[in-house]
């Protein structure tokens, strides 16, 4: 493995722009750290928007008798008091759209990708800072367009986040022409932002690694974001194109998806899921990478099977492009094709299993510190296992005939996306907050937040498996309309109460997050006594990150190397002898 050539010897020297200060910093800064924090705040805001939508739709499912408006629009204030079926359809459509495109992707990739990649590879900034900033503002614009769609005549898109045609593509069928069109515009813009971010990340990682930072010395968080960037670059343009086609079908008289005029409804599904399945991995790989780093830090152990982890992620990235058809087993596409997709889907479970075993291997023989970050990371592992295992039911084509589109799959996606990605994001926030803001988050509040979130999450989502097996369909505004679902109502109400508890638990997080900005204990450079490059610089790091580009001498996980007083050796430390290592840089205790 050859070492990378540094893009510049001192990071400051390469920057031609001057750093704006004060509020202007948050409008025009091209600094990847500022952009990362902008992404963090914006997507956390959307997390609460998306969560609010979820609570509204849960309310409707538990207490559908409050639905008294048979038909109404959101522009009419009277109809706001009650959730009518069309508004309910908008709620779950926009809940998923917001969570996928405005929360999980931007949190993992926009916030942590931006913040961590240059710091972890020893670069001064991203390769294209201006495009980076543009990516953020296009993302904000896409969020604005999607939010605005609630206010237009007919309301927001109501065809599900999957927007299956021809319901989505023919105005007469969906009654939300404006909302659906804005959905297309929003998704298109969001895709642009993702594509801009993706090639920026790839260029940065390929060209701007510090001397000595070979590919196989990169932390797994960087590897995961690197692989994710390729997935984005290959998958997102397909969705953007599909969204453009859908927009044209809706507004310009084309008929890509309308069979009444020769179009193909299944074409939409193929395009959507060709994006949609890699998207699943886009939303979990960065969390896997960051959680790997976090498990290693707080076990004080090197990651178990580093290369196996890298190759497993590459395998997931590759196989992720040949499994999309498993979303379409029951769509009526070629039945032999379903069988083939069934096999590839089973195969892609293997690298996920490898990763899980390696996480357990990392804990084995460790010296485990139960910080809030670690608790969230451990919960990521456990919840991901549940979500991964429940996926096997759908991967089996015959069982999918039964559980497809029931609440079983709603449980599954939430175990992966909330139990997995969101717990991973919490772990990452608790880990890197000190680096971002120079102060520690409160550990006690953090643990209370974790405990409530973990308990309410499971109370909310686990019973969904049962209602799904009981035969409850997803996306129905009123389960009591069905005789065979009426006996489910107590469970539905229980789930809703747990969801409300889950929502309110996040207030603890908000309080901790904002209070710690001013009142948290000072973090120092390296509060977790970690090895990677971001921990060698001040918290928060200055503009340009490194006064002098660091040289990397070792892999990212030199914890508990025998024969050393200190249980970690940073990547930029040249020699492993105690004499040169000196005293630990930070004395903030962990655990």
């Amino acid at each position, binding site marked *: 493995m050859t070492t990378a050539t540094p893009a510049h010897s001192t990071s400051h020297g390469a920057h031609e722009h001057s750093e704006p200060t004060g509020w202007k910093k948050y409008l025009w800064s091209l600094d990847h750290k500022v952009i990362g924090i902008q992404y963090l705040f914006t997507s956390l805001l959307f997390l609460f928007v998306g969560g609010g939508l979820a609570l509204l739709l849960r309310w409707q499912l538990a207490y559908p008798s409050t639905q008294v408006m048979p038909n109404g629009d959101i522009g009419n204030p009277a109809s706001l008091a009650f959730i009518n079926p069309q508004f309910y359809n908008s709620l779950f459509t926009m809940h998923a759209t917001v969570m996928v495109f405005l929360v999980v992707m931007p949190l993992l990739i926009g916030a942590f990708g931006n913040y961590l990649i240059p710091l972890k590879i020893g670069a001064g900034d991203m390769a294209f800072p201006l495009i980076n900033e543009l990516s953020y503002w296009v993302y904000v614009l896409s969020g604005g367009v999607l939010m605005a769609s609630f206010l237009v005549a007919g309301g927001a898109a109501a065809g599900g986040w999957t927007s299956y045609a021809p319901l989505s593509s023919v105005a007469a069928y969906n009654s939300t022409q404006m909302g659906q069109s804005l959905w297309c515009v929003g998704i298109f813009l969001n895709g642009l932002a993702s594509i801009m971010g993706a090639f920026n990340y790839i260029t940065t990682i390929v060209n701007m690694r510090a001397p000595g930072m070979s590919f196989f010395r990169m932390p797994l968080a960087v590897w995961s974001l690197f692989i994710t960037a390729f997935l984005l670059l290959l998958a997102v343009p397909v969705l953007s194109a599909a969204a453009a086609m859908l927009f044209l079908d809706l507004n310009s008289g084309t008929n890509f998806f309308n069979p009444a005029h020769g179009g193909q*409804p299944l074409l939409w599904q193929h395009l959507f899921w060709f994006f949609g399945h890699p998207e699943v991995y886009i939303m979990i790989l960065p969390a896997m990478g960051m959680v790997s780093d976090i498990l290693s830090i707080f076990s004080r152990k090197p990651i178990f099977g580093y290369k196996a982890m890298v190759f497993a992620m590459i395998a997931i990235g590759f196989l992720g492009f040949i499994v999309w058809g498993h979303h379409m087993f029951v769509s009526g596409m070629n039945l032999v094709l379903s069988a083939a997709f069934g096999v590839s889907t*089973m195969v892609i479970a293997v690298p996920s299993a490898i990763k899980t075993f390696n996480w357990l291997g990392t804990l084995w023989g460790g010296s*485990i510190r139960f910080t809030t970050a670690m608790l969230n990371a451990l919960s990521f592992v456990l919840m991901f296992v549940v979500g991964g295992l429940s996926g096997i039911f759908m991967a089996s084509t015959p069982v999918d005939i*039964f559980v497809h589109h*029931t609440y079983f799959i709603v449980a599954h996606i939430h175990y992966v996306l909330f139990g997995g990605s969101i717990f991973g994001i919490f772990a990452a926030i608790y880990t890197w907050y000190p680096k971002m803001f120079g102060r520690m988050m409160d550990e006690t509040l953090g643990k209370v937040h974790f405990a409530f979130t973990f308990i309410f999450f499971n109370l909310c989502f686990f019973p969904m498996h049962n209602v799904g097996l009981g035969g409850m369909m997803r*996306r129905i505004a009123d389960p009591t309309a069905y005789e065979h679902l009426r006996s489910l109502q107590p469970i539905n109400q229980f789930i809703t109460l747990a969801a409300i508890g889950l929502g309110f638990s996040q207030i603890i997080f908000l309080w901790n997050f904002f209070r710690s900005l001013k009142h948290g204990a000072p973090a120092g450079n390296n509060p977790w006594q970690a090895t990677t490059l971001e921990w060698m610089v001040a918290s928060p790091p200055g503009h340009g990150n490194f006064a002098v580009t660091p040289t990397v001498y070792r892999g990212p996980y030199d914890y508990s190397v025998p024969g050393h007083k200190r249980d970690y050796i940073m990547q930029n430390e040249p020699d492993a002898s105690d004499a040169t290592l000196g005293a630990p840089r930070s004395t903030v205790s962990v655990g």
Partner: protein
Amino acid sequence: MRISLNPSHRLVLALLGLAISGAQAEIRETSVWWLPRNVNMFGHTIDFLFYVILILTGVTFIGVFSVLVYFLVKYRARPGVAALHSHGNNTLEVVWTTIPVFIFLGLAIYGNEQWTQMRLKTPPADALPVAVIGEQFGWNVRYPGPDGKLAKMEAAKVNKDNPFGIDSSDPAGLDDFTTYGELVFPVNRPIRLYLGSKDVIHAFYVPEFRLYQDMVPGRIYDFVWLKAEATGKFQLACNQLCGQGHYKMFGKLTVSTAPEYEAWAKSKAPSPSVTTVVPPSPVAMNQK
């Protein structure tokens, strides 16, 4: 095997994934914690595969969970005890890659075999053909008359006035009869479904039949077949989001004895002068 359980035991069993198939129908009547009873011939395979996967995943989960908890307790940070410096173990990597590969491939191969049985084998020749064409928000149903044959349907001909896409001069169709949102299947006789849609994608979903199939406009699917093994009343549900009225797009599905079916069919048969049956409006059908 019939097991009587009090509700709290049922709850615990269901949560542990140990509910036993004999008790399912009972659980279904009181609360829906578990699979509803199965009445379709293919349901046995699906349920069997479901339980195989449940046991495999359950054992895996318990294994992972136990190891995780054991490690967390055993390797918690203690003063004076350093962590091991280990970068991994290639033998273990090979072992825990190979075992899942075989398990997953086994599942895929067995699943595919069953899929082939259910979907790729031609239905028996004596199967009763029934056409179901979805629309916002109801079900057009067409049964063959005494000749046992449905009129030939073409997806390209499906439109607002011709939901089944038939040629009205087709002699096979003259004795066909139609209903709106009402299906009756004779018990123990294979049924071959012809599924399509007039407008958007709908889905034919009956949990007791372990059956879900999208109904896509522009296509008529003829590969779904089933055989009901017990009589009873069920609800047919649309399970593909189809618009504002999706949540109440349901139909009546009855499995009855052969004589009951014959009597019902006779009562629905068209009088010679009537060639088409006008469906009632969707509003009237949404019997809440």
